[in-house]
């Protein structure tokens, strides 16, 4: 299965997601060799943005834990919304919607193409 931001675009008939989604080229599920300047923290993305995971800067045990929720190299992540009353953010990764605290999202590096 091809995992790409373009494909995810077709899901965005919902008002929240129709806010400025950048159009990306198709990126496969293979690990992406990133350009250093393109790497950003997952926590820096705005709601509606979409990116590809490049690296999990976590200790092995934590990385394995995060991996179970679908956060692996090459996976496409969309920022769905911020949770009210706190600092959690809902991300769509694969078929699931998962919340992360900013300190966890900080350690996940993603690649995002400039608009």
């Amino acid at each position: 299965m091809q995992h790409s931001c373009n494909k995810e675009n077709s899901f965005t008939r919902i008002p929240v997601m129709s806010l400025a989604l950048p159009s990306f080229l198709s990126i496969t599920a293979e690990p992406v060799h990133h350009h250093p300047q393109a790497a950003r923290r997952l926590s820096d993305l705005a709601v509606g943005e979409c990116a590809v995971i490049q690296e999990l800067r976590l200790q092995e045990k934590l990385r394995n834990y995060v991996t179970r929720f679908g956060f692996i190299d090459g996976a496409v992540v969309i920022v769905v919304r911020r949770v009210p009353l706190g600092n959690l953010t809902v991300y769509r990764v694969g078929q699931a919607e998962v919340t992360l605290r900013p300190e966890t999202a900080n350690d996940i590096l993603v690649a995002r193409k400039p608009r």
Partner: protein
Amino acid sequence: MIAAFRECSACGESPRSNPVAIAQAGRPPLRTVALIGPPNSGKSTLFNRLTALRQKVANYPGVTVEHHTGVIPANSGPAITLVDLPGVYDLTAYSEDERVASQVLHGEMPGVSRPDAVLIVVDATNLERHLSIVPDVLRTGLSALLILNMADLLEARGGQVNLVKLAGELGIPVALVSGTTGAGMDAIHNFLHAHNSHEGQRALPVLQSPAACQRWARNLADTSDYRAPLPALWTRRLDAVLLHPLWGPLVFLLVIVALFQVVFALGQPLSNGLQTVLDDLGRALFSWMGAGLVKSVLFDGVWRGFSSILVFLPQILVLFLFITVLEDSGYLARAAVMADRTMQRVGLNGKSFVPLLSAYACAVPAIMSARTIENRRDRLATILIAPFMTCSARLPIYTLVIAAFVPERALLGPLLGTRGAAMLGLYALGFLAALFTAAILKSSVLKSSSMPFILELPEYRRPTLRSMVIRSADRAWVFTKNAGSVILVIATILAILANLPLAGGAPPELHQSIIGRMGHLIEPLIQPLGFNWRVGIGLVTSVFAREVIVGTFGTLYGADPASRDLTLQSALHRDLAPGGAVALLVFFAFALQCTSTLAVVKRETNSWKWPAFQFAYMAALAYAAAFLANFLVSHLWS
């Protein structure tokens, strides 16, 4: 979809594993089958559908993980025992749950026989991620059926999968099933009763890391022509409201208010009604007995003690129905993520919110519901702070003391009076004590390596009546069994102590009984709190259940000629200084006078260490706070 499922059952009957041939070859029928799957795969719904009410709950020996077994009846041959394993993503043994699941499947769990086969349940709408559990399970060598659950959602949202290809890749039969609607269940029964061998099972690659496992699962999904379903539109639409910056918190507040309303406006009258019924029934049952020691012990002690717990059952049932609806609908996960910030401040996370919410009704089911917290230390901290939340057993004494000492005046017009404010203050006091204790525990003995808080938001679903009834009944039964057995023992002991020593062949006056003497004995200890010996007796009798103190006061003031003709409120008002009254409220807000809670904490933590610590800590806190309250109030008053 149905056509696809038929194709699949055809593959199960392929020549390399012909079930009929094997059965005729004398292969023994299945007796024990395990059910395994990741969290949120709909495993419990499936378990409930397969076993209905033929379930048993116990703990695995030596660990706190629950052991759910159920029986699947068979038309012919022996019934099959289905073992529901904890929800796990793989068998890497990071958590206690995974260790238990792995041990059971390998036949290494003492007292649990190795299953003959295993049912692997995964969410068909999230196949790429959930398939990663399969290699670990197949490596145990057990014959297996892979169940793709939630077939109805997969179909409704335009997803699909080629079951024949998937079964071919894995070498095990695959069934597409909906635990909610019951579609495709035949395939499971076929597997169970016309059992295949696992000769066709493929050797799967040994995958070193979870990431490699995820990639393998994704490739397998691709090979099986898996088309992921579209995201759930309704879930997105509901979340746009329920997690909206303004509406989200408002609905959250409404849900909590509704929970209180349900417990008090619906559960309380039911409890009161049950109380009347049980009292009348008790009187009728024991009417033939003459007054004396035996009747006092059996009726006043055992029957009253047991019914004092039983009357909470309606409230607990109603509460569990409400929480089951919240949980099964998917809302609870949203509430938990909104509560995360508050919980984070004291070192916990959103998952602790649910038990604390239920503890407003009763700490016993709340402590049981802390099982959903994976981190052992977080779970322990939640169990230890839950009894601080104002449970319904505190209401009788709160109501009595407030009515006796707080004059009713309007504070916010008709909305809030002084008495209501006092009650709210006590609720706040309990909540703050819980947070304070959590902060202390989580920064010292229960400090944990910070596993990130990650919560998957499940899709919203309509809760099924079936699952609501089964789960509430299950919880109610566990509550009655646990609390009831302890209460029976302690009520009997207390009733005997209250009726000894015999004075001239008749039970003594309460203050001369062993319990009464204990009240006198502890009087010097409780005098600094503004309590007299009557309160002392109340504290002794209420050690096993808070609400008992009101009944004890009734007996004591009723027996005293000086206060016989007064209402309980006026008698208490005359007997106790304001400082003592406030101290009494504060004492009850903090102290752990509940043997049912102690029993369930012992059961959940598998040791007496934690309930003992909890009891001592809460008693010390209650004593110190009551002392301070009495000191402050008596000095302010004079």
